[in-house]
């Protein structure tokens, strides 16, 4: 179930990125996006990429490249909605790949089906919320004053410090 979902996410990501670049007449970027998608598909095959440190790093690298590709697409004037969709799919593929690795590296999985179902439900909710937020941000225009901008900056700094605190707590 997880592997199918991961494959679908990678295919969707590749189609969104490569298609958008191809339609925007950027063949080099389209080829690169297709190559990233191809490697992503290969890495979802456990026989080719068994669970391990290097596979985990490869998955991270593909995710970073996909997100960077989406950002580059926006810079080159492609549809932001398509790039947002590509980012959400890249995030889903990355999440599923790590989840699959965790299950594969365990000697035994207790209640695999319910774990997978629970994870997919959580992922669908989080990704859906992210996509919805992104679309709202794209199509809702709010004019900000300097003070509001500064306030938002402050919130960002606070959120960053909170994130670092949580990261440190998890590390310990």
């Amino acid at each position, binding site marked *: 179930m997880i592997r199918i979902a991961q494959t679908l996410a990678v295919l969707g990501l590749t189609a969104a990125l490569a298609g958008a670049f191809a339609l925007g007449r950027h063949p080099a970027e389209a080829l690169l996006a297709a190559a990233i998608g191809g490697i992503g598909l290969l890495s979802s095959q456990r026989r080719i990429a068994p669970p391990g440190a290097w596979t985990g790093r490869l998955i991270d690298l593909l995710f970073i490249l996909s997100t960077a590709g989406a950002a580059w697409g926006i810079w080159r004037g492609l549809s932001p909605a398509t790039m947002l969709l590509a980012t959400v799919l890249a995030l889903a593929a990355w999440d599923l790949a790590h989840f699959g690795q965790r299950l594969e590296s365990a000697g035994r999985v207790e209640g695999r089906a319910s774990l997978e179902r629970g994870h997919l439900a*959580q992922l669908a909710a989080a990704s859906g919320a992210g996509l919805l937020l992104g679309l709202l941000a794209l199509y809702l225009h709010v004019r900000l004053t300097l003070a509001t901008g500064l306030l938002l900056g402050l919130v960002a700094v606070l959120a960053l410090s909170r994130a670092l605190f949580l990261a440190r707590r998890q590390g310990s």
Partner: protein
Amino acid sequence: MRQFLLLSILAYVLLIVGLAALERGWVVLALPLIAHLVASQLRGPDVPRLAARRSLSSARAPQGARVSVQLTVTNEGADTPMVAIRDLLPPLAALEEGATSVVGALPRGASLTLDYVVSGERGDYVWRGAEVTVSDPLGIAARRLVLPALNHLLIVPGSQALRHVEIRPQRTHGFAGPIPARQGGPGVEFYGVREYQRGDPLRWINWRASARHPRALFTNEFEQERTADVGLILDGRQRHDIRRGEQSLLEHSVRATAALAEAFLNDGNRVGLLIYGWFLDWTFPGYGKVQRERILRALARARASESVVFESLDRLPARFFPARSQLVLISALCPEDLPFLTRLRAQGYQLLVVSPDPVSFEAGAFAPSREVELAARLARLERRALLGTLRRTGAVVVDWPVDQPLERALAQATGRVPQLLRTISAGGMT
């Protein structure tokens, strides 16, 4: 942890660069990542309240035995959507069956159990705890902790049973046993003749001697058989632990020591053990099954090690052993050991040296060639000279090729074989 960091960094890079470049699309790209992070934190793991309990099918097992291990982790706190448990195996334990890790959900009050089978070489194995990783359903926010669960497994050396080892210490105890006590009295072996005393059984009267002396009667005396103090010394110095692939000469010495200890204890003797290596591992002398267990436990922990202090046998404290008792040294021997062993003999100790043959053991590691054969021959000559010198001090030396049963080597060296045959047997290979 790594996933959490990666998402955070990516989201902030997109946000900051988007704001700096006034590119709304980049800020928008950060939103799904932030939503993912927030979702993981909303259902992130609280401080988990878990308890681990491990049980072993046996706390003590002979070498080669399989031991079943069961680890149960119980959730005493709130529901945990996803938990990964990994039992921390002792480094040298080999997993034979089952799995040492499990992933699953752990609701409040529920338990996850791991069942597996391990085996291992001789040694003391310690399980200290189980590693548990509790995470949110997305696996982004995770907490890792080690739950304490202490267990010990002692794998004792296997040994072959020896029927009886012939020793003859100068001092014996008052209890009846199998060791000739150098004193006349009731026994089996003829010891001497003395004048008849009232109460002597008639069948003990030596009629031939009495016939020569018409006015007196003479009685046969037999040698009393008693128990004795036996001190086992296992040489654990690194220099004597020769390795041949996976095999180690020390393992043979350990097994020989276990077999000797068992044989001496079965005969009713008081047996102590000193392992001479990194430090002096002294097992105080004792009798019976409890002492056997103590010795096996000490032998299970024996390791070859190098110490500057105990480089030579000179630091071996002979005062640990009662005066004029029987000492049994299990060592591959080297020429530097000779003066100390000579001194032990001079102090009145009876010395039995069981020496696993390092030359034939090591020669087996090489492909046969003229050079190897020549080197082995030279080493054998040197060893034969060393053992010959040691025998001349009065020590009984058992030259034991480890691929042969110890009992045969002991019988050849200590049995009542005529000296001529023993000499032929020892020198027959030349």
